[in-house]
């Protein structure tokens, strides 16, 4: 890569088109992500030049989508999907789809609401 922009550290577009995760096994910033984290693409997504796989992630996340689903649809291991999501969160192209605090899995109010939602379904 001898493109000057590629050496700058701004934006994903020109910086990281040449390697999927650049040999990283951990995201640069974790944002508390795991396979169940839900993310969504920003509205009015800016037209920036991005590596193909980042665009694929943004296309998938027009509706709230989990890291696991991104991995499954793009046929990549979950840890790779986690790194991509973390990169896009850092660029504010993805946002968390869960805006409030995550209820504990044994929170009775949460469980009751999920149960009622399932019964209504």
């Amino acid at each position, binding site marked *: 890569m001898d493109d000057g922009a590629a050496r700058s550290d701004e934006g994903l577009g020109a910086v990281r088109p040449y390697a999927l995760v650049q040999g990283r096994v951990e995201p640069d910033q974790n944002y508390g992500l795991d396979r169940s984290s*839900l993310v969504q693409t920003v509205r009015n997504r800016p037209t920036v030049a991005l590596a193909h796989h980042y665009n694929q992630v943004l296309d998938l996340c027009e509706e709230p989508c989990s890291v696991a689903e991104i991995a499954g649809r793009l046929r990549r*291991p979950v840890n790779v999907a986690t790194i991509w999501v973390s990169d896009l969160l850092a660029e504010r192209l993805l946002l968390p789809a*869960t*805006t*409030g605090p*995550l*209820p504990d899995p*044994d929170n009775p109010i*949460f469980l009751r609401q999920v149960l009622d939602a*399932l019964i209504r379904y």
Partner: protein
Amino acid sequence: MPSYGTDSTLPAKIIIAGGFGAGKTTFVGAASEIRPLRTEEQLTAASRNIDSLHGLAAKSTTTVAMDFGRLTLPLAAGNGLGAQHVQLLMFGTPGQQRFGFMWDGLTHRAVGACVLVDTRRLPDAFAPVEYFERRTMPFVVAVNRFDGMRTHDTGDVHAALDLEPWVPVMDCDARERPSARKVLIQLLRHACDRAEASFLTR
């Protein structure tokens, strides 16, 4: 982190476990609103055998393929959770893997589990049952009716698996969406009852 502020979706993780060929993949497909996906997970755990010379815990890693499906549901207004939707995220475990401490990362923060049982291979259910019992994670046992099978009394299955009295056992046909949904409802009802009971005694 900035976010929409207006619309929030909560994840709710559910584990679909059971022995080899018990119907886990079929179940995820029936319950899911999307074509079920396969996800590859790398499970890593510090080995229990500590390297005595260096005092380091050796790490072991295996890659497993999980089934993945989801179901998005609207939450009632004024639910006190500040969210409008929930996504049930269903993870089907592979049948041939041994259930053990390697699974802890995967099952962490799950609301509960369904253990699918093929009565022709009832003992296959022991390992997952024991796993969820030890972690005090709510689970239900779903007896998958394969064609031409003599129907077992769910009470017999309950006894044969030596389950705690409060663990629900029910019939299901993993190929049928309404049947899979009934199992999910039973699981949530059970998880909810348990959580409400322990909330009162806290």
